[in-house]
Every structure is written in C-alpha cells, then in structure tokens.
C-alpha cells in the first residue's frame, strides 16, 4: 500500500516538478489527437449518412408491357420469397401515370400525345439492411433483371458506389492519419518521459543502489506517461466537442443547410471512453519507448 502510494506520489511529483514540459506535452498530444479526431468524426458522420441514405434507396423493377397477370404474380411471389427483399410495393401502369401527374403537373401534357399510357408497371423494392452494399445491390439487380417479365432494373448505382467509395476513402485517410499522428503522440510523450528521466537520473541511481527493482523505478514513469496520454485525449475530446458545437451552430445560423444539424452527431459515450483509453495506451507506449533502453544491465 505504502509502495503504491509512493509510486503515485512520485508520478505526481514528476509532473509537478516539470510543469511546463507536462503542460506542453498534454497540449501537443491534445492537438495531435484532435487532428485524428476530426477525421474520425467525419468518418462517423459520413458512415452514418451513408447508412440512412442507403436505407432510403429503392430499386425499381420495371415490368414488360406484354407480361401477363400470371407472370406478374409469379414474379411477385419470387420477390417476396427472396430473403434479400425487406419490402415490396406493386405499382400498376395506371398508378404510375397518376403518380407522374401528381409529381409533375405542369409536364403531364407531354404524355397526352403518346396515346396509350407509356409508363410501365413496376415493383418498388427495398432490400434488407445487410444486403445494401453496392456489390450486393448490383448482384441482386443482375439476377432479377434476368427473370421472366422484367424489362429493366433501375437503381442509382453511381450514387451508391460513390458513397461507398467516399466512406472507404475517409476510413483509409483516418487510419493513415491516425497511425502517423499516434506515432507523433508517442514520440511527444516519450520525449517528456526522457526529460523526466534525465532530470532525475541521480535519484534513480540512488534507488538502484538501495535495492529498488526495475519495476519499482519504472512504474512512476509509466503512470506519468499514461496520465499524460489520458489528459491529452480528454482535452482533445473537449476541443472536438467545442468545435463540433460551433460548427453545428454555424450551419443552423446560415440557414443554407437548415435541418442538417440534427443529423450531424458527436462520438457516442462509449467511443469517447475508447478514445481516452487509446490516449492512455499511447502515453504508456511513449513511456515504454523511453524506458526500453533505460536501466538495462546490472547497475
């Protein structure tokens, strides 16, 4: 117990003794992790947006005019039995015409000259959430396109693929930036610990001579590194939250993107805790790097 108290007191004393270095380390770590956080926040929001945009994507299965009533019923049966299909709505030629007139009242005269109703009957299909990736949609559309009575399967392929590409790109950039800036955070904290080790080298030598184990000497520095990482990451979350709220306020004030602010989200609590955990681990790693070569051998 006394040993634990000693270790924690030493870590605290280290940080107090090197106040400027400690503050600089926390601030630079916070800034570094904030940069990573911006990409993560962007990623979380774009992925969320992609999710609900994909939820909204409908696939239109247009039917051939010459398809008989039996053909349509047969196709409907097949689609309803398909485990990838979560919702299905039949739109007859007449309903299609009514919807067209309702949606484009000023253009409805365009259809007048064509005599018979030129709009095809169709099924509006919503796929189950687990089958909404661009590849899955593409494969499904190709399969259904070959079924009897189907004239064409239409969906916004480019839109889905562009969205998937955007999510993947942000994910890759976030990973890349995350790795580089995490290495920077480890180096910053590692240097702080190295300075602390240098400042206290005589004390460390005394501890060695009176029989302190390597672990006893090192633990305060591990605690210090972890604390710096935790403080840095907590501060970075504060910076991100402040920036996020400011951004949300700005977009609602401009009015141009009115309404979008309610769809922009900050990290959930679990992710905030995970980020503080990551910061702590980075700080620990920084200490580890500095202490690795320290105290090797017998002295």
């Amino acid at each position, binding site marked *: *117990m*006394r*040993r634990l108290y*000693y270790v924690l007191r030493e870590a605290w*004393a280290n940080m107090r003794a090197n106040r400027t270095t400690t503050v600089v380390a926390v601030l630079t770590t916070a800034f570094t992790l904030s940069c990573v956080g911006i990409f993560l926040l962007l990623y979380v929001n774009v992925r969320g947006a992609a999710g609900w945009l994909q939820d909204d994507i409908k696939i239109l299965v247009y039917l051939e005019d010459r398809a008989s009533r039996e053909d349509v019923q047969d196709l409907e049966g097949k689609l309803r039995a398909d485990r990838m299909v979560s919702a299905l709505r039949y739109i007859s030629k007449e309903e299609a015409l009514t919807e067209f007139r309702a949606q484009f009242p000023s253009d409805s005269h365009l259809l007048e000259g064509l005599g018979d109703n030129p709009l095809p009957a169709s099924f509006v299909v919503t796929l189950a959430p687990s089958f909404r990736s661009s590849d899955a949609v593409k494969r499904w559309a190709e399969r259904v396109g070959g079924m009897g009575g189907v004239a064409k399967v239409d969906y916004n392929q480019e839109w889905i693929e562009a969205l998937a590409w955007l999510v993947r790109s942000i994910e890759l950039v976030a990973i890349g930036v995350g790795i580089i800036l995490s290495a920077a955070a480890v180096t910053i904290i590692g240097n702080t610990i190295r300075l602390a080790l240098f400042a206290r080298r*005589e*004390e460390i*030598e*005394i*501890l*060695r*001579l*009176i*029989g*302190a*184990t*390597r672990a*006893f000497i090192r633990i305060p520095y591990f605690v210090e590194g972890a604390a710096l990482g935790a403080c840095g990451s907590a501060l970075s979350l504060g910076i991100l939250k402040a920036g996020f709220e400011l951004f949300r306020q700005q977009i609602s004030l401009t009015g141009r993107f009115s309404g979008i602010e309610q769809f922009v989200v900050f990290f959930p609590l679990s992710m905030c805790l995970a980020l503080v955990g990551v910061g702590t681990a980075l700080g620990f790693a920084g200490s580890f790097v500095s202490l690795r070569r320290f105290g*090797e*051998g*017998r*002295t």
Partner: protein
Amino acid sequence: MDAMIQLIHVSKYYNRRPALSDVSLEIEKGEFVLLMGPSGAGKTTLLRTLIGAEQPDEGQIFVQGRNVTKLKPSEVPYLRRKVGSVFQDFRLLPKKSVFDNVALPLIVQGASSQDIRRKVTEALRAVGIEHKNDHLPHNLSAGEQQRVCIARAIVNGPIVLLADEPTGNLDPERTTEIIDLFKLINARGTTVLVATHDPHVMAQVNRRVVVLERGALAPEQRVGV
C-alpha cells in the same frame, strides 16, 4: 569463522587498463576492515563489484556464500537490500525529508507503514539525529547528512555495510564521530568495509587494513586489535 565476503582472483579493466588486478580477499562475518589506497587505486571499483554495480572481467565474488558475478540483473536489487552503502557525497534525495530519505529502502521492499515508522526512528536514534527527521538534507551540516546516509544504509538491518570515503567531506571532529558510529554498527554484528585514503581514519579504527595500489592488493597489515 564464516567468510562474509570473498573475492577470488578478481580483475576489472577499463580500456584495457586494470582497475582491479588479480585481487583475492576474504572478509569474515562481523569483521571491520579498512580498504586503504590513494585515489584511483581501485577502491570504489572493488566496492561496486560487491553490490553488482560492476561486473569483474575475471574472477568470482561471493557475498554470504552467494556468487555475485552469477546473479541475474533481476536478482541484484535483492543483494543490495542486504548490503548497506554509504557514500562520500551522501547521495540523499534533496526534496525529501530526513525521515523519507531513511525510509526509502523500506518502501522499496514493501514494508508496512508501522514497520517503516519504527525502523526509521530506531535508525535515526542510532545515528543521533532523530530530532531532525522532518528537515530537508540541505538544511543539515555535512556531518549530519552523512549520519542520515548511514541511517539509510542500516535501516533494514544489512549483513554488510560498505562505505566509500565516508569522511571525505568531513572535518576531523566529524570524522571521529562517523568512525565511532561505524564501530558501534560493527559491534552489533554487521560486517563493515570502509574504503578511505585518509590515514587518520586508519589510526582511529585500529583494525584490519587492506591496501590497494594500482588495482592490486599490497601485503596486509593489522593495526591494533
């Protein structure tokens, strides 16, 4: 009698120059030995090999029957807990009180708070400085700082006490006090090895003297008892 410290043909080189040259020495349990020699004779190197701070290039070293040269790095701290060390420059932690400095070896070993309080008080009383337990080292005289250093070395009841030029920074009066303290500690059963180049210390100690010259042992002489 049992050998507490044994050096068998020990040599140590720095840049091919011998710091210790074929040193063989045996110190028995409860002995008080003076290690004499001029600066650079190898006294500090010899003491450092005894606590595993230096590895000899040749030879074997035993402390209480344990081969120090064969210890793993993780075992060295446990050897040092049995061997108290006193330094010429005291090596006290400047920002810690006298009490905390003396308590350090016990904290390192994981002693309980009650044990720490009792043993530190005893050690400070033994060196006659218990009334200054809350002082910082820089508020003490050189002689008092050396007493604190000795208290720290004996607080966990070591089997051996090593002192490297313990009176180097002290006036003759304080030197006598510190030597008397070592005699007292030795009288309680601790084996004491004091390295010094000060002939006044030799005159006061009146015990076995081992002389090192350029890393080699000179023929032994025994003064007094």
